[in-house]
C-alpha cells in the first residue's frame, strides 16, 4: 500500500535528529512536526523571522503579529527568538539550518528541483524556496511519485522552470524512499506492499537498485 501524506511525513520525521534546526515547507513538510518523537529537541525555523516555532494557538489566543511563513497563526516556545528577514535568510545561506524539507513538482536525477512555476498558469512567486534550496546543507523532498496524470515526477531532467540545481539529497514519495547522488536516484526503501517493478515503471529518471530493497517501516 502506498504511503498517504501522514505516512510520508512520518517517514521523513525519522531523518530528523536531536538538536537539529529544521525548516519545514508548506504542505506535507508541515505535517512532519507532528511526528517528531516526544523528548527529541528540534528547533523549527520559520523564514519570516522565528526560531522555535510552537504549535497553533488555542482558540482566542491568536496573535496577528505572530505567524509562520504560511501566514498561519502560531505560538512561541521557551527559547524562541525573533529576527528580521535578512538575518533569517542569512542563517539559511550560512548553512546554520541543518535540514530543509519541502515539496516539489519535479526532481531530476542530478538533484535539480522545480516547485514554483507552471508556464501558462498564474505565477505566484518563489517566496523563500530558491534561497532555501541554494544553501541548505541537507534537502529532503516530500512529494507524490507521479503527477495526477500518472507521469513520473522523478525525471532525467526537469521540464518545469527550476527552483534550484543539484541540491536535493533525498526524496520520500508515496511509493519509495530514494537518495539522489552521482546523477541517479538510488532506491533505498519501498512503501509497504509496493513492488520494485512498480517503482521502476513509475520512475522516468535513472534508477539504481542494489540488492534487496526493504519496506519502509514507520
Amino acid at each position, binding site marked *: 500500500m502506498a504511503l498517504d501524506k501522514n505516512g510520508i511525513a512520518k517517514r521523513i520525521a525519522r531523518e530528523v535528529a536531536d538538536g537539529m534546526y529544521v525548516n519545514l515547507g508548506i504542505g506535507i513538510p508541515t505535517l512532519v512536526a507532528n511526528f517528531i518523537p516526544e523528548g527529541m529537541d528540534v528547533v523549527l525555523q*520559520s*523564514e*519570516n*523571522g*522565528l526560531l522555535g516555532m510552537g*504549535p*497553533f*494557538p*488555542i*482558540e482566542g489566543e*491568536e*496573535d*496577528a*503579529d*505572530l*505567524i*509562520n511563513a*504560511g*501566514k*498561519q*497563526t*502560531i505560538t*512561541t516556545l521557551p527559547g524562541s527568538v*525573533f*529576527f*528580521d*528577514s*535578512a538575518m*533569517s*535568510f*542569512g542563517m*539559511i*545561506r550560512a548553512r546554520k539550518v541543518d535540514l530543509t524539507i519541502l515539496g516539489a513538482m519535479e526532481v531530476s536525477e542530478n538533484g*535539480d528541483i522545480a516547485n514554483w512555476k507552471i508556464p501558462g498558469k*498564474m*505565477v*505566484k*512567486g*518563489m*517566496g*523563500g*524556496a*530558491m*534561497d532555501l534550496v*541554494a*544553501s541548505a546543507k541537507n534537502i529532503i523532498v516530500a512529494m507524490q511519485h507521479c503527477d495526477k496524470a500518472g507521469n513520473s515526477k522523478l525525471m532525467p531532467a526537469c521540464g518545469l*522552470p*527550476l*527552483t*534550484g*540545481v543539484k541540491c536535493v539529497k533525498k526524496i520520500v514519495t508515496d511509493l519509495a524512499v530514494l537518495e539522489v547522488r552521482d546523477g541517479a536516484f538510488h532506491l533505498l526503501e519501498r512503501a509497504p506492499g509496493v513492488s520494485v517493478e512498480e517503482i521502476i515503471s513509475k520512475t522516468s529518471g535513472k534508477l539504481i537498485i542494489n540488492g534487496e530493497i526493504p519496506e519502509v517501516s514507520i
Partner: protein
Amino acid sequence: MPIYKVVKNAEEACLGISDGMTLMIGGFGLCGIPENSIAQLVKNGVKNLTCISNNAGVDDFGLGLLLQNRQIKKMISSYVGENAEFERQMLSGELEVELVPQGTLATRCMAAGYGMPVIYTPAGVGTEVAEGKEVRNFNGKDYLMEYAFDADYAIVKAWKGDTMGNLVFRATARNFNPLMAMAGKITIAEVEELVEPGELDPNMIHTPGIYVHRIFKGENYEKRIEQRTVRQ
C-alpha cells in the same frame, strides 16, 4: 535643538510622495504592514508607483487597496498569491511584476541600509532568476550579483517608537520592517505606541532613529489575520 521626528499623522508623514516614485512597504503578508500610511496613499491617489514589498496584500486590505485603485505600476515581491485583482491586472498586462527570491529581497534592502551597492547570493543560480545577471564563483560555488534597492521612501510599521525615531518591533511583525527602515532615502515609521526618549531601553532598540525621518502614532489598527489557525 533636540532631534524631534514626530509628524502629526499619516497625511503629514506622506507629504512628498508623488507619482512615479519607488516605495518600500514593510510587512510579511498582512503582518506588520503600515496600515495608516497605506490608507493615506489611497486617499492621496498617487499613481504609477513601484512598490517593493514581499507580498501584495489581499483584495480588500494591505497593498490590495492600492491595486484596486490602479495606483501601482510595478510590484517587486517574492510571493503574490492571495489577491484576485492582482492576478487580473498582471494577466492583462496593466501591472508589471518582478519576482525576487525572498532572501534576495530582504538582503537587497539590507545592502541599501548598509551602504553596499551589491550582494552576491546563490539563490536563483541556474534558474530564470539568473538571466542577464553576473555570476561569480567564490570558493567553488556560483553566486548571482544582485543590486541594492534604491527607494525614494520606505514606509514601515513598528510596535513602539520614540520621538527621535528609535524603533522596536514585535514578534514576526518585524520581518522586512527594520531592513526597509534602513533603506529608504526618506523613511516613515508608524507606531502603535509613541514614547519620549529614554523610555525605550537602548539595549532593546531594533532600529536606531538615525535611519528614520518621520514618525507618527498610527490609529485604529485592524491587524487582520490572513490564516487563522488554532489547535484542535
